[in-house]
């Protein structure tokens, strides 16, 4: 009985203590100062990004250094200011304008990734390779090596630079492919074309060996979704001629026993499914988009 009374008293005490909370006025919530440093006087670059990307497509491009967007174990640098508008206007020409021309303004506004992070240097990996683009969540795309970005007509352009340019567009098309494929899944038969060949060990496979097994690149072997968007990215950046040349040049039997004829057939099946996916799902003529995109890229590298 006594215990019960004690418990009652404790509860009473708790009630009294909490009852004492005084009225905390939150103050003027319209003016919370924040930690500062996230705004600056807008310059010509900020205005260009606002007018060309943010206002029409709700895309922002962060070019000022923010370590919080990046790996903390990589040595990286921000981009040179004189590279930002050339890179982003090339992105606009090759990627946005061509999709708008084929699929319409609304399609692009609804589906494009909204956030670009621009980095001047490459991202050096411990195995000696350099990462030149990453993306996550269909929203954020990080472009590296902007300080080396050169297209035809810029001082110091050498043909080797065309690799960097193509690689950059490959990254963007790859990530945009993910967004489309995550919104509406492709025909699951696609996964069965090269079933059993998907592997986490793809980074030890050369592109040539991957081609012999019916994959467009080695990275396409990592998963069916990656396979699907690597096909899109390769076909758009290299054009129909580039893709046909890749397929026609496959020779020999792969270490897994796939013959050249089988590999060619698999790649052609994948191509057909992608063309149909674009037609049926998004009402886009893929071959027209491919021809436009490749033509724009060629103006920059040839």
């Amino acid at each position, binding site marked *: 009985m006594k215990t019960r009374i004690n418990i009652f008293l404790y509860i009473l005490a708790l009630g009294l203590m909490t009852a*004492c909370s005084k009225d905390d006025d939150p103050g003027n919530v319209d003016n919370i100062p924040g930690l*500062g440093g996230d705004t600056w006087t807008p310059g010509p670059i900020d205005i260009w990004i606002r007018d060309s990307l943010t206002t029409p497509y709700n895309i922002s491009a962060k070019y000022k250094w*923010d370590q919080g967007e990046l790996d903390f174990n990589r040595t990286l*640098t921000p981009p*040179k*200011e004189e590279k930002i508008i050339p890179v982003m206007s090339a992105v606009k020409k090759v990627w946005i304008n061509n999709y708008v021309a084929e699929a319409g303004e609304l399609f692009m506004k609804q589906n494009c990734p909204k956030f670009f992070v621009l980095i001047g*240097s490459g991202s050096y990996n411990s195995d000696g390779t350099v990462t030149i683009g990453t993306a996550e969540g269909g929203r954020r795309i990080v472009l590296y090596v902007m300080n080396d970005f050169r297209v035809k007509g810029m001082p110091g352009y050498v043909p080797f630079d065309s690799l960097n340019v193509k690689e950059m567009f490959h990254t963007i098309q790859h990530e945009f492919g993910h967004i489309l494929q995550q919104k509406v899944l492709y025909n699951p038969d696609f996964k069965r074309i090269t079933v059993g060949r998907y592997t986490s060990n793809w980074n030890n496979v050369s592109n040539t060996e991957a081609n012999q097994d019916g994959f467009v690149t080695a990275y396409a072997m990592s998963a069916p979704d990656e396979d699907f968007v690597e096909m899109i990215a390769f076909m758009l950046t290299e054009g129909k001629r580039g893709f046909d040349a890749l397929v026609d040049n496959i020779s020999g039997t792969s270490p897994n026993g796939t013959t050249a004829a089988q590999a060619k057939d698999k790649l052609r099946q994948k191509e057909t499914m992608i063309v149909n996916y674009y037609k049926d799902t998004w009402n886009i003529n893929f071959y027209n988009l491919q021809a436009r995109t490749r033509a724009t890229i060629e103006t920059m590298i040839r």
Partner: protein
Amino acid sequence: MKLTSIYTPLLLFMLVIGACRKDDDPVFDKTADERINEALSKYQAALIGAPDGWEARIVTGTGGIFNFHFQFKPNNRVSMYADIDTATAGNARESSYRLKALQQPSLIFDTYSYLHQLADPDGNVNGGDDGSGLVSDFEFSIDTVTTDSIKLTGRFNNTKVTLLRAAPQDAAAWQNGDWRNTLSFQYIANIQEYFKRLTFSGAAYDLRFNVLQRTITFVWADAGGTLRQFTSAYFYTREGLILETPFNDGTRTITRLTGAGWNNNTLRVTINGNTPGTIAGAISPIKNDLGAPRRWWETMASQQGYWITGNGFHVNGVDDAFRMRSIPNFYFAIYWPEYNTQDGVTYDVMGYVVVANNSLALQFGSAWEPPTFTANGRVIFRLLGTLGTVPASAVSIYNNINTQMEEPSGYYLVQTSTGSYDMVSAKDARAWITWEQ
């Protein structure tokens, strides 16, 4: 039991009274956000408040000392000079900066500038290693701010920087090109001969520069004819190249070299601010190390080891002139004294190590007769044959390197550290290769 029943209500009573204290005034009269923003705007005012800008000296993680001049403007813009090369010392470059509260109030140079050249992970930009560059910073936490100095610490590589308020003559020294003249020492790299000879008032020294670590080495023969050398770190001021440890050979002391013009592959210099001199190429060492070739060869012959070269021959100003590094899967090349014996000849091998099946393999190389060591301190190589099969794509590279090795005048060897030698063509000192352990 009884005690408990007395104390429990008492304790509760105390709690109830104590819980009602309403006095919770904050220790500070402003919120943390407000105080941080105040500190940032105070720092910003200090940065902008120096009419002639700020001078700074940066010591990178690789040991190089670099000078900078910053002029901060109110609209997040900063213009700067740096003593990296004649371009950065002669032309102001504008980029952006901002102050931001990270874990501490921080100064971020947030678009590319001369400062970022030191930190750039691309080794082609600054001569550092790919992936880390010169190990430097462009994002700094602010440690202390006074009117005359601002102390900063790099947030990534811990680079310590002190900004010192510049006087009008400091800013003028950058603007009117004093610093650019100082940086004319970079032209020494254009001298194609291996030996760089400093000559002044009857004295002569061979110089070796390590531009990456900013060290200078003097080589000379002392009164008894013994070869001596001395190395010191150096840094630039607007009055020239200053030796951290002054050079002294017993008769002469050198503390400072000032560039006075580059012309005809010769750099005119002023020593210690008063004595004119020149730095020019020389085709033979100031005093040849007569025992060096045999010492180089026997170091490895005695331990059945080999010397390594990663870059091959530098010829007429071109690194890896024979494109050795373009051999498929090339890793490094070796010189292996007394590799094996055939028909009574114990031969040396210059071998090309490649990556095959994820491991290193010596698949082909050239065999050399036991080298000739001449009385005047040279080594001469004669080709004996080929080991293994040279890949078709490497045949011309392989033949060109052999032709260079067979240089009839032979080679000098210059010992640059306990475990490294430079092998320099005795014909004209315009071809050399570095051997390391």
